[in-house]
Protein backbone atom coordinates (compact mmCIF):
# COMPACT_ATOMS: atom_id res chain seq x y z
CA UNK A 1 0.00 0.00 0.00
CA UNK A 2 1.27 3.50 -0.86
CA UNK A 3 2.54 5.68 1.96
CA UNK A 4 0.22 8.30 3.41
CA UNK A 5 1.93 11.64 2.73
CA UNK A 6 -0.79 13.78 4.29
CA UNK A 7 -2.36 12.61 7.52
CA UNK A 8 -4.95 14.41 9.63
CA UNK A 9 -5.76 12.61 12.84
CA UNK A 10 -8.74 13.79 14.92
CA UNK A 11 -8.16 17.34 13.76
CA UNK A 12 -10.09 20.20 15.33
CA UNK A 13 -9.79 23.91 14.91
CA UNK A 14 -11.58 26.70 16.75
CA UNK A 15 -11.55 30.43 16.02
CA UNK A 16 -12.40 32.07 19.34
CA UNK A 17 -15.65 30.31 20.29
CA UNK A 18 -16.50 29.13 16.76
CA UNK A 19 -15.72 25.56 15.79
CA UNK A 20 -14.47 25.50 12.19
CA UNK A 21 -13.41 21.85 12.02
CA UNK A 22 -14.12 19.07 14.53
CA UNK A 23 -12.48 15.69 14.94
CA UNK A 24 -11.55 15.19 11.29
CA UNK A 25 -9.39 12.22 10.34
CA UNK A 26 -8.28 11.61 6.78
CA UNK A 27 -5.20 10.72 4.83
CA UNK A 28 -3.89 11.10 1.29
CA UNK A 29 -1.54 8.46 -0.06
CA UNK A 30 1.20 8.82 -2.65
CA UNK A 31 -0.33 8.64 -6.13
CA UNK A 32 -3.80 9.36 -4.83
CA UNK A 33 -6.26 12.21 -5.29
CA UNK A 34 -8.61 12.90 -2.41
CA UNK A 35 -11.32 15.48 -2.89
CA UNK A 36 -12.70 17.50 -0.02
CA UNK A 37 -16.37 18.31 -0.56
CA UNK A 38 -18.59 20.42 1.59
CA UNK A 39 -20.83 23.46 1.55
CA UNK A 40 -19.44 26.98 1.94
CA UNK A 41 -18.19 27.49 5.48
CA UNK A 42 -17.82 23.74 6.05
CA UNK A 43 -14.16 24.08 7.07
CA UNK A 44 -12.52 22.99 3.80
CA UNK A 45 -10.16 25.96 3.54
CA UNK A 46 -9.34 25.74 7.26
CA UNK A 47 -8.50 22.06 6.82
CA UNK A 48 -6.35 22.90 3.79
CA UNK A 49 -4.55 25.63 5.70
CA UNK A 50 -3.83 23.28 8.57
CA UNK A 51 -2.55 20.60 6.22
CA UNK A 52 -0.37 23.21 4.50
CA UNK A 53 1.20 24.13 7.85
CA UNK A 54 -0.23 27.64 7.63
CA UNK A 55 -2.25 27.44 10.83
CA UNK A 56 -2.00 24.98 13.68
CA UNK A 57 -4.89 22.79 14.80
CA UNK A 58 -6.50 23.40 18.17
CA UNK A 59 -6.49 19.64 18.72
CA UNK A 60 -5.37 16.60 16.79
CA UNK A 61 -2.27 15.63 14.85
CA UNK A 62 -1.03 16.42 11.34
CA UNK A 63 1.74 14.70 9.45
CA UNK A 64 3.06 16.23 6.23
CA UNK A 65 5.35 13.91 4.29
CA UNK A 66 6.53 12.32 7.52
CA UNK A 67 6.92 15.57 9.48
CA UNK A 68 4.72 15.93 12.55
CA UNK A 69 3.33 19.46 12.41
CA UNK A 70 4.14 21.62 15.43
CA UNK A 71 4.94 25.31 15.84
CA UNK A 72 8.61 24.33 15.64
CA UNK A 73 8.32 22.20 12.49
CA UNK A 74 5.77 24.28 10.58
CA UNK A 75 8.31 25.98 8.29
CA UNK A 76 9.93 22.63 7.42
CA UNK A 77 6.50 21.09 6.88
CA UNK A 78 5.50 23.94 4.56
CA UNK A 79 8.60 23.27 2.49
CA UNK A 80 7.30 19.75 1.85
CA UNK A 81 3.89 20.66 0.53
CA UNK A 82 2.69 22.68 -2.44
CA UNK A 83 -0.38 24.86 -1.97
CA UNK A 84 -2.60 26.25 -4.69
CA UNK A 85 -4.73 28.92 -3.07
CA UNK A 86 -8.26 29.69 -4.20
CA UNK A 87 -7.12 32.90 -5.92
CA UNK A 88 -3.92 32.60 -8.01
CA UNK A 89 -2.41 35.50 -6.00
CA UNK A 90 0.23 36.44 -8.55
CA UNK A 91 2.15 39.72 -8.47
CA UNK A 92 0.43 41.23 -11.44
CA UNK A 93 2.99 43.91 -12.33
CA UNK A 94 5.78 41.36 -12.60
CA UNK A 95 6.59 38.78 -15.23
CA UNK A 96 5.61 35.14 -14.85
CA UNK A 97 9.31 34.30 -14.59
CA UNK A 98 10.02 36.81 -11.82
CA UNK A 99 6.92 35.72 -9.90
CA UNK A 100 8.17 32.16 -9.86
CA UNK A 101 11.81 33.09 -9.37
CA UNK A 102 10.91 34.94 -6.17
CA UNK A 103 9.03 31.91 -4.85
CA UNK A 104 11.88 29.58 -5.82
CA UNK A 105 14.24 31.80 -3.82
CA UNK A 106 11.82 31.87 -0.87
CA UNK A 107 11.67 28.08 -0.99
CA UNK A 108 15.46 28.00 -0.92
CA UNK A 109 15.81 25.69 -3.92
CA UNK A 110 19.39 25.12 -5.08
CA UNK A 111 18.97 26.48 -8.62
CA UNK A 112 15.97 28.84 -8.69
CA UNK A 113 16.14 29.61 -12.42
CA UNK A 114 16.26 25.90 -13.34
CA UNK A 115 13.32 25.17 -11.00
CA UNK A 116 11.30 27.91 -12.68
CA UNK A 117 12.02 26.48 -16.13
CA UNK A 118 11.10 22.99 -14.96
CA UNK A 119 7.86 24.11 -13.30
CA UNK A 120 6.83 26.16 -16.34
CA UNK A 121 7.57 23.22 -18.61
CA UNK A 122 5.36 21.10 -16.35
CA UNK A 123 2.37 23.36 -16.92
CA UNK A 124 3.26 23.96 -20.56
CA UNK A 125 3.90 27.68 -20.14
CA UNK A 126 7.62 28.02 -20.76
CA UNK A 127 6.95 30.22 -23.79
CA UNK A 128 4.93 32.66 -21.65
CA UNK A 129 7.67 33.18 -19.03
CA UNK A 130 8.42 36.77 -19.98
CA UNK A 131 4.78 37.91 -20.03
CA UNK A 132 3.43 40.17 -17.31
CA UNK A 133 1.31 38.03 -14.98
CA UNK A 134 -1.53 40.57 -14.86
CA UNK A 135 -2.07 40.25 -18.60
CA UNK A 136 -2.67 36.50 -18.58
CA UNK A 137 -6.13 34.92 -18.75
CA UNK A 138 -7.57 33.42 -15.58
CA UNK A 139 -6.84 29.90 -16.81
CA UNK A 140 -3.21 30.74 -17.54
CA UNK A 141 -2.86 32.45 -14.16
CA UNK A 142 -4.13 29.29 -12.52
CA UNK A 143 -1.53 27.24 -14.37
CA UNK A 144 1.20 29.66 -13.25
CA UNK A 145 -0.08 29.26 -9.69
CA UNK A 146 0.14 25.47 -10.08
CA UNK A 147 3.70 25.88 -11.37
CA UNK A 148 4.42 27.94 -8.24
CA UNK A 149 3.18 25.09 -6.08
CA UNK A 150 5.54 22.70 -7.90
CA UNK A 151 8.74 24.79 -7.73
CA UNK A 152 10.20 22.98 -4.72
CA UNK A 153 9.07 19.56 -5.98
CA UNK A 154 6.73 18.72 -3.11
CA UNK A 155 5.39 15.18 -2.91
CA UNK A 156 2.13 16.45 -1.43
CA UNK A 157 -0.11 19.02 -3.12
CA UNK A 158 -3.10 20.93 -1.79
CA UNK A 159 -5.29 22.46 -4.47
CA UNK A 160 -8.05 24.77 -3.27
CA UNK A 161 -10.76 24.96 -5.95
CA UNK A 162 -8.32 24.63 -8.85
CA UNK A 163 -10.91 25.01 -11.62
CA UNK A 164 -13.18 27.57 -9.97
CA UNK A 165 -14.23 30.24 -12.44
CA UNK A 166 -12.40 28.71 -15.39
CA UNK A 167 -13.95 28.17 -18.80
CA UNK A 168 -14.52 24.50 -19.74
CA UNK A 169 -11.37 24.22 -21.87
CA UNK A 170 -9.14 25.75 -19.18
CA UNK A 171 -10.80 23.60 -16.51
CA UNK A 172 -10.16 20.51 -18.64
CA UNK A 173 -6.51 21.50 -19.01
CA UNK A 174 -6.13 21.94 -15.24
CA UNK A 175 -7.87 18.61 -14.53
CA UNK A 176 -5.52 16.84 -16.96
CA UNK A 177 -2.63 18.51 -15.23
CA UNK A 178 -3.84 17.25 -11.86
CA UNK A 179 -4.24 13.71 -13.19
CA UNK A 180 -0.71 13.94 -14.58
CA UNK A 181 0.60 14.99 -11.17
CA UNK A 182 -1.09 11.98 -9.60
CA UNK A 183 0.59 9.66 -12.08
CA UNK A 184 3.94 11.06 -10.87
CA UNK A 185 3.14 9.62 -7.44
CA UNK A 186 2.17 12.81 -5.66
CA UNK A 187 -0.47 12.89 -2.94
CA UNK A 188 -3.09 15.44 -3.94
CA UNK A 189 -5.88 16.92 -1.86
CA UNK A 190 -8.38 18.96 -3.86
CA UNK A 191 -11.37 21.03 -2.80
CA UNK A 192 -14.15 21.69 -5.26
CA UNK A 193 -17.87 22.40 -5.48
CA UNK A 194 -18.02 20.61 -8.82
CA UNK A 195 -19.29 17.09 -8.05
CA UNK A 196 -18.66 15.89 -11.60
CA UNK A 197 -15.07 16.97 -11.27
CA UNK A 198 -14.81 15.28 -7.89
CA UNK A 199 -16.10 12.04 -9.38
CA UNK A 200 -13.72 12.27 -12.34
CA UNK A 201 -10.59 13.09 -10.37
CA UNK A 202 -10.97 11.41 -7.02
CA UNK A 203 -9.72 8.13 -5.72
CA UNK A 204 -11.47 8.98 -2.48
CA UNK A 205 -13.83 11.73 -1.39
CA UNK A 206 -14.14 13.31 2.03
CA UNK A 207 -17.39 15.11 2.81
CA UNK A 208 -16.96 17.81 5.40
CA UNK A 209 -19.41 19.95 7.27
CA UNK A 210 -17.41 20.96 10.33
CA UNK A 211 -17.35 17.21 11.10
CA UNK A 212 -16.16 14.63 8.61
CA UNK A 213 -19.41 13.14 7.34
CA UNK A 214 -17.92 10.50 5.04
CA UNK A 215 -14.58 9.43 3.61
CA UNK A 216 -14.78 6.80 0.88
CA UNK A 217 -14.33 6.09 -2.81
CA UNK A 218 -16.90 7.75 -5.12
CA UNK A 219 -18.54 4.36 -5.73
CA UNK A 220 -18.42 3.54 -2.04
CA UNK A 221 -20.02 6.88 -1.18
CA UNK A 222 -22.88 6.21 -3.57
CA UNK A 223 -23.19 2.64 -2.35
CA UNK A 224 -22.89 3.46 1.33
CA UNK A 225 -25.70 5.91 0.99
CA UNK A 226 -27.82 3.45 -1.02
CA UNK A 227 -30.45 2.95 1.66
CA UNK A 228 -33.76 3.52 -0.10
CA UNK A 229 -32.25 2.82 -3.56
CA UNK A 230 -34.39 0.93 -5.97
CA UNK A 231 -34.22 -1.49 -8.82
CA UNK A 232 -36.68 -1.04 -11.68
CA UNK A 233 -37.69 -4.19 -13.57
CA UNK A 234 -39.52 -3.84 -16.86
CA UNK A 235 -41.69 -6.82 -17.80
CA UNK A 236 -42.87 -8.16 -21.13
CA UNK A 237 -46.00 -6.38 -22.23
CA UNK A 238 -45.05 -3.01 -20.66
CA UNK A 239 -45.39 -3.96 -17.01
CA UNK A 240 -43.01 -2.43 -14.52
CA UNK A 241 -42.07 -3.41 -10.96
CA UNK A 242 -39.97 -1.44 -8.47
CA UNK A 243 -38.18 -2.93 -5.48
CA UNK A 244 -36.42 -1.14 -2.68
CA UNK A 245 -32.94 -2.55 -2.16
CA UNK A 246 -30.21 -2.05 0.39
CA UNK A 247 -27.44 -3.12 -1.96
CA UNK A 248 -27.06 -4.07 -5.61
CA UNK A 249 -26.28 -7.63 -4.45
CA UNK A 250 -29.99 -8.14 -3.81
CA UNK A 251 -30.88 -7.71 -7.49
CA UNK A 252 -30.17 -11.31 -8.67
CA UNK A 253 -32.39 -12.72 -5.93
CA UNK A 254 -35.24 -10.42 -6.90
CA UNK A 255 -34.86 -11.34 -10.55
CA UNK A 256 -34.74 -15.07 -9.71
CA UNK A 257 -37.86 -14.79 -7.58
CA UNK A 258 -39.77 -12.96 -10.33
CA UNK A 259 -38.69 -15.53 -12.93
CA UNK A 260 -39.78 -18.32 -10.58
CA UNK A 261 -43.16 -16.61 -10.36
CA UNK A 262 -43.37 -16.77 -14.16
CA UNK A 263 -42.52 -13.19 -15.02
CA UNK A 264 -40.75 -12.49 -18.31
CA UNK A 265 -38.16 -9.83 -17.68
CA UNK A 266 -37.19 -7.38 -20.43
CA UNK A 267 -34.85 -5.05 -18.55
CA UNK A 268 -33.38 -4.60 -15.06
CA UNK A 269 -32.25 -1.07 -14.16
CA UNK A 270 -30.68 -0.37 -10.80
CA UNK A 271 -31.84 3.12 -9.92
CA UNK A 272 -28.40 4.02 -8.69
CA UNK A 273 -28.18 7.40 -7.05
CA UNK A 274 -25.65 9.93 -8.23
CA UNK A 275 -22.83 11.32 -6.15
CA UNK A 276 -24.90 14.48 -5.94
CA UNK A 277 -27.75 12.56 -4.28
CA UNK A 278 -25.36 11.00 -1.81
CA UNK A 279 -23.64 14.33 -1.12
CA UNK A 280 -26.86 16.27 -0.62
CA UNK A 281 -28.20 13.61 1.68
CA UNK A 282 -24.98 13.70 3.69
CA UNK A 283 -24.85 17.46 4.14
CA UNK A 284 -28.58 17.62 4.74
CA UNK A 285 -29.25 20.14 1.99
CA UNK A 286 -32.61 20.63 0.39
CA UNK A 287 -32.82 20.11 -3.34
Amino acid at each position, binding site marked *: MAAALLVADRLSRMFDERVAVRDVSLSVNAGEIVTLLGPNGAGKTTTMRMLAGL*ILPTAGRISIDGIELTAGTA*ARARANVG*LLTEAPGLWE*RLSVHFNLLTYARLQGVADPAASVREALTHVDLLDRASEIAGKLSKGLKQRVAIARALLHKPRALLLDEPTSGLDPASARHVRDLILGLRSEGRAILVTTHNLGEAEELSDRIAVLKTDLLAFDTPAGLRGARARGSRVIIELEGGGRREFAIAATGEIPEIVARLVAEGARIMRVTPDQRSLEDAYLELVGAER
Partner: protein
Amino acid sequence: MTPFKWYRVTALARKDARELLRNPGAIVPAVLMIFASLFPLFLVIFFVPMIVGKTLEQSGEFSEEALNAMSRMPELAGLSGNALIQTFLFHQFSLLLLLVPIVSATTLATHAVIGEKQSKSLEPLLATPISTLELLAAKTLTPFVFALGLTWVAVVLEVMGTIAIGEAGVWRAILGARLFILFGVLGPLVVLASLEVSVITSSRASDPRSAQQLTALLILPVTAVFVAQLLGLVIVGPAALLLGALACVIFNAVLAWVGVRVFQRETILTRWH
Protein backbone atom coordinates in the same frame (compact mmCIF):
# COMPACT_ATOMS: atom_id res chain seq x y z
CA MET B 1 11.89 28.48 16.19
CA THR B 2 12.82 28.75 12.49
CA PRO B 3 16.24 30.32 11.97
CA PHE B 4 16.13 33.80 10.41
CA LYS B 5 17.29 33.55 6.79
CA TRP B 6 18.40 36.69 5.00
CA TYR B 7 18.03 35.07 1.58
CA ARG B 8 14.27 34.92 2.09
CA VAL B 9 14.17 38.57 3.22
CA THR B 10 16.22 39.73 0.24
CA ALA B 11 14.19 37.59 -2.20
CA LEU B 12 10.98 39.29 -1.14
CA ALA B 13 12.58 42.73 -0.79
CA ARG B 14 13.93 42.47 -4.36
CA LYS B 15 10.45 41.60 -5.55
CA ASP B 16 9.01 44.59 -3.65
CA ALA B 17 11.64 46.90 -5.15
CA ARG B 18 10.78 45.76 -8.66
CA GLU B 19 7.06 46.16 -7.99
CA LEU B 20 7.50 49.64 -6.50
CA LEU B 21 9.51 50.81 -9.49
CA ARG B 22 6.61 49.74 -11.71
CA ASN B 23 4.04 51.46 -9.54
CA PRO B 24 3.92 55.21 -10.21
CA GLY B 25 1.16 55.56 -7.59
CA ALA B 26 3.72 54.67 -4.93
CA ILE B 27 6.85 56.36 -6.29
CA VAL B 28 5.54 59.70 -7.61
CA PRO B 29 4.18 61.09 -4.27
CA ALA B 30 7.47 60.19 -2.59
CA VAL B 31 9.55 61.94 -5.27
CA LEU B 32 7.23 64.96 -5.35
CA MET B 33 7.69 65.34 -1.59
CA ILE B 34 11.39 66.10 -2.16
CA PHE B 35 10.50 69.14 -4.22
CA ALA B 36 7.60 70.12 -1.96
CA SER B 37 9.88 70.17 1.08
CA LEU B 38 12.70 72.05 -0.68
CA PHE B 39 10.47 74.64 -2.32
CA PRO B 40 9.64 76.81 0.76
CA LEU B 41 13.35 77.17 1.60
CA PHE B 42 14.39 78.27 -1.86
CA LEU B 43 11.30 80.43 -2.16
CA VAL B 44 12.23 82.39 0.96
CA ILE B 45 15.99 82.69 0.51
CA PHE B 46 16.22 82.98 -3.26
CA PHE B 47 13.01 83.63 -5.20
CA VAL B 48 11.41 86.25 -2.93
CA PRO B 49 14.60 88.39 -2.70
CA MET B 50 14.98 88.02 -6.47
CA ILE B 51 11.40 89.18 -7.08
CA VAL B 52 11.52 92.14 -4.68
CA GLY B 53 15.05 93.07 -5.75
CA LYS B 54 16.44 93.19 -2.20
CA THR B 55 18.50 90.70 -0.20
CA LEU B 56 17.07 89.37 3.04
CA GLU B 57 19.46 91.58 4.93
CA GLN B 58 18.38 94.65 2.97
CA SER B 59 14.70 93.95 3.54
CA GLY B 60 15.32 93.26 7.21
CA GLU B 61 13.54 89.91 7.10
CA PHE B 62 14.69 87.38 9.72
CA SER B 63 17.67 89.57 10.75
CA GLU B 64 16.57 89.83 14.34
CA GLU B 65 15.72 86.13 14.64
CA ALA B 66 19.10 85.18 13.14
CA LEU B 67 20.99 87.42 15.54
CA ASN B 68 19.01 86.06 18.49
CA ALA B 69 19.81 82.50 17.43
CA MET B 70 23.58 83.07 17.30
CA SER B 71 24.06 82.35 20.98
CA ARG B 72 22.22 79.03 20.76
CA MET B 73 23.47 77.87 17.33
CA PRO B 74 27.25 77.54 17.25
CA GLU B 75 27.21 77.03 13.46
CA LEU B 76 26.21 80.69 13.03
CA ALA B 77 29.37 81.93 14.73
CA GLY B 78 31.54 84.03 12.46
CA LEU B 79 28.76 84.72 9.97
CA SER B 80 27.17 88.07 9.36
CA GLY B 81 24.79 89.87 7.07
CA ASN B 82 23.02 87.89 4.38
CA ALA B 83 25.14 84.75 4.99
CA LEU B 84 24.00 84.68 8.61
CA ILE B 85 20.33 84.97 7.67
CA GLN B 86 20.62 82.34 4.93
CA THR B 87 22.36 79.87 7.24
CA PHE B 88 19.75 80.50 9.91
CA LEU B 89 16.97 79.86 7.42
CA PHE B 90 18.65 76.73 6.04
CA HIS B 91 18.72 75.41 9.57
CA GLN B 92 15.07 76.26 10.11
CA PHE B 93 13.81 74.82 6.87
CA SER B 94 15.96 71.69 6.89
CA LEU B 95 13.52 70.28 9.44
CA LEU B 96 10.93 70.26 6.68
CA LEU B 97 13.04 67.66 4.87
CA LEU B 98 11.97 65.19 7.55
CA LEU B 99 8.64 65.14 5.75
CA VAL B 100 10.37 63.29 2.90
CA PRO B 101 11.09 60.11 4.92
CA ILE B 102 7.66 60.23 6.52
CA VAL B 103 5.70 60.63 3.30
CA SER B 104 7.88 58.33 1.19
CA ALA B 105 8.04 55.58 3.83
CA THR B 106 4.28 55.81 4.30
CA THR B 107 3.36 55.62 0.63
CA LEU B 108 5.91 52.92 -0.18
CA ALA B 109 5.13 50.69 2.81
CA THR B 110 1.37 50.90 2.46
CA HIS B 111 1.67 49.87 -1.16
CA ALA B 112 4.06 47.04 -0.24
CA VAL B 113 1.64 45.58 2.35
CA ILE B 114 -1.75 46.45 0.89
CA GLY B 115 -0.49 45.47 -2.56
CA GLU B 116 -0.12 41.92 -1.24
CA LYS B 117 -3.63 42.06 0.22
CA GLN B 118 -5.14 43.38 -3.00
CA SER B 119 -3.41 40.79 -5.18
CA LYS B 120 -4.36 38.04 -2.68
CA SER B 121 -0.72 36.96 -2.62
CA LEU B 122 -0.34 36.84 1.17
CA GLU B 123 -1.60 33.27 1.50
CA PRO B 124 0.73 31.72 -1.11
CA LEU B 125 3.52 33.81 0.38
CA LEU B 126 2.82 32.52 3.86
CA ALA B 127 2.68 28.97 2.50
CA THR B 128 6.43 29.18 1.85
CA PRO B 129 8.89 28.56 4.69
CA ILE B 130 9.17 32.35 5.30
CA SER B 131 8.68 33.28 8.95
CA THR B 132 6.51 36.22 9.93
CA LEU B 133 9.58 38.04 11.25
CA GLU B 134 11.30 37.58 7.88
CA LEU B 135 8.14 38.78 6.17
CA LEU B 136 8.01 41.87 8.39
CA ALA B 137 11.70 42.54 7.73
CA ALA B 138 11.24 42.16 3.97
CA LYS B 139 8.17 44.39 3.95
CA THR B 140 10.11 47.18 5.69
CA LEU B 141 13.52 46.73 4.02
CA THR B 142 12.64 47.97 0.52
CA PRO B 143 10.59 50.99 1.65
CA PHE B 144 13.33 51.77 4.21
CA VAL B 145 16.06 51.84 1.56
CA PHE B 146 13.90 53.82 -0.88
CA ALA B 147 12.69 56.33 1.73
CA LEU B 148 16.12 56.90 3.24
CA GLY B 149 17.63 57.17 -0.24
CA LEU B 150 15.07 59.80 -1.23
CA THR B 151 15.71 61.69 2.02
CA TRP B 152 19.42 61.82 1.36
CA VAL B 153 18.77 62.87 -2.23
CA ALA B 154 16.74 65.76 -0.79
CA VAL B 155 19.60 66.69 1.57
CA VAL B 156 22.14 66.57 -1.25
CA LEU B 157 19.87 68.79 -3.37
CA GLU B 158 19.54 71.20 -0.49
CA VAL B 159 23.29 71.40 0.02
CA MET B 160 23.92 71.70 -3.73
CA GLY B 161 21.34 74.48 -3.91
CA THR B 162 23.10 76.21 -1.06
CA ILE B 163 26.45 75.95 -2.80
CA ALA B 164 24.93 77.22 -6.04
CA ILE B 165 22.94 80.19 -4.81
CA GLY B 166 23.91 80.80 -1.19
CA GLU B 167 26.37 83.32 0.10
CA ALA B 168 30.00 82.26 0.53
CA GLY B 169 30.51 80.19 3.67
CA VAL B 170 26.89 79.19 4.09
CA TRP B 171 27.24 75.62 2.86
CA ARG B 172 30.22 75.02 5.15
CA ALA B 173 28.19 76.31 8.08
CA ILE B 174 25.30 73.95 7.48
CA LEU B 175 27.46 70.85 7.00
CA GLY B 176 27.80 70.16 10.70
CA ALA B 177 26.67 68.01 13.58
CA ARG B 178 23.10 69.23 13.32
CA LEU B 179 22.70 68.09 9.71
CA PHE B 180 24.37 64.76 10.49
CA ILE B 181 22.11 64.07 13.50
CA LEU B 182 19.03 65.24 11.62
CA PHE B 183 19.49 63.01 8.58
CA GLY B 184 22.03 60.44 9.71
CA VAL B 185 20.42 59.54 13.04
CA LEU B 186 16.92 61.01 13.31
CA GLY B 187 16.12 60.49 9.62
CA PRO B 188 16.50 56.68 9.66
CA LEU B 189 14.61 56.49 12.95
CA VAL B 190 11.77 58.56 11.50
CA VAL B 191 11.74 56.30 8.41
CA LEU B 192 11.51 53.25 10.64
CA ALA B 193 8.70 54.73 12.75
CA SER B 194 6.76 55.71 9.62
CA LEU B 195 7.21 52.21 8.22
CA GLU B 196 6.04 50.54 11.41
CA VAL B 197 2.98 52.76 11.68
CA SER B 198 2.26 52.11 7.99
CA VAL B 199 2.52 48.35 8.41
CA ILE B 200 0.24 48.38 11.46
CA THR B 201 -2.38 50.59 9.80
CA SER B 202 -2.10 48.66 6.52
CA SER B 203 -3.07 45.48 8.34
CA ARG B 204 -6.47 47.00 9.04
CA ALA B 205 -6.97 49.00 5.84
CA SER B 206 -8.05 47.65 2.48
CA ASP B 207 -6.59 50.36 0.28
CA PRO B 208 -3.36 52.38 0.49
CA ARG B 209 -5.05 55.77 0.77
CA SER B 210 -6.98 55.01 3.95
CA ALA B 211 -3.83 53.62 5.56
CA GLN B 212 -1.90 56.71 4.51
CA GLN B 213 -4.48 59.02 6.08
CA LEU B 214 -3.70 57.58 9.50
CA THR B 215 0.05 57.55 9.08
CA ALA B 216 -0.10 61.16 7.86
CA LEU B 217 -0.60 62.03 11.54
CA LEU B 218 3.17 61.56 11.88
CA ILE B 219 3.61 64.78 9.94
CA LEU B 220 1.99 66.77 12.75
CA PRO B 221 4.86 66.71 15.30
CA VAL B 222 7.41 67.70 12.63
CA THR B 223 5.31 70.60 11.37
CA ALA B 224 4.57 71.68 14.96
CA VAL B 225 8.29 71.89 15.78
CA PHE B 226 8.95 73.65 12.47
CA VAL B 227 6.30 76.29 13.19
CA ALA B 228 7.52 76.71 16.78
CA GLN B 229 11.02 77.31 15.37
CA LEU B 230 9.82 79.89 12.89
CA LEU B 231 7.97 81.71 15.65
CA GLY B 232 11.20 81.78 17.64
CA LEU B 233 9.72 79.66 20.43
CA VAL B 234 12.40 76.97 20.16
CA ILE B 235 15.78 76.46 18.54
CA VAL B 236 16.30 72.87 17.54
CA GLY B 237 20.00 72.29 17.95
CA PRO B 238 22.03 69.06 18.07
CA ALA B 239 21.10 68.35 21.70
CA ALA B 240 17.38 68.71 21.03
CA LEU B 241 17.70 66.51 17.96
CA LEU B 242 19.49 63.82 19.95
CA LEU B 243 16.69 63.98 22.51
CA GLY B 244 14.20 63.64 19.67
CA ALA B 245 16.17 60.65 18.37
CA LEU B 246 16.02 59.01 21.80
CA ALA B 247 12.24 59.56 21.93
CA CYS B 248 12.06 58.08 18.44
CA VAL B 249 13.99 54.98 19.58
CA ILE B 250 11.47 54.41 22.38
CA PHE B 251 8.54 55.05 20.00
CA ASN B 252 10.05 52.60 17.52
CA ALA B 253 10.42 49.94 20.21
CA VAL B 254 6.73 50.27 21.12
CA LEU B 255 5.73 50.16 17.45
CA ALA B 256 7.90 47.09 16.84
CA TRP B 257 6.22 45.33 19.77
CA VAL B 258 2.79 46.10 18.27
CA GLY B 259 3.95 45.30 14.73
CA VAL B 260 5.23 41.83 15.63
CA ARG B 261 1.86 41.07 17.22
CA VAL B 262 -0.03 42.28 14.17
CA PHE B 263 2.26 40.30 11.87
CA GLN B 264 1.27 36.86 13.09
CA ARG B 265 0.64 34.24 10.42
CA GLU B 266 -2.80 33.33 11.71
CA THR B 267 -3.80 36.97 12.19
CA ILE B 268 -2.78 37.79 8.63
CA LEU B 269 -4.67 34.81 7.22
CA THR B 270 -7.84 35.09 9.25
CA ARG B 271 -8.22 38.77 10.14
CA TRP B 272 -6.57 40.77 7.36
CA HIS B 273 -9.27 41.54 4.84
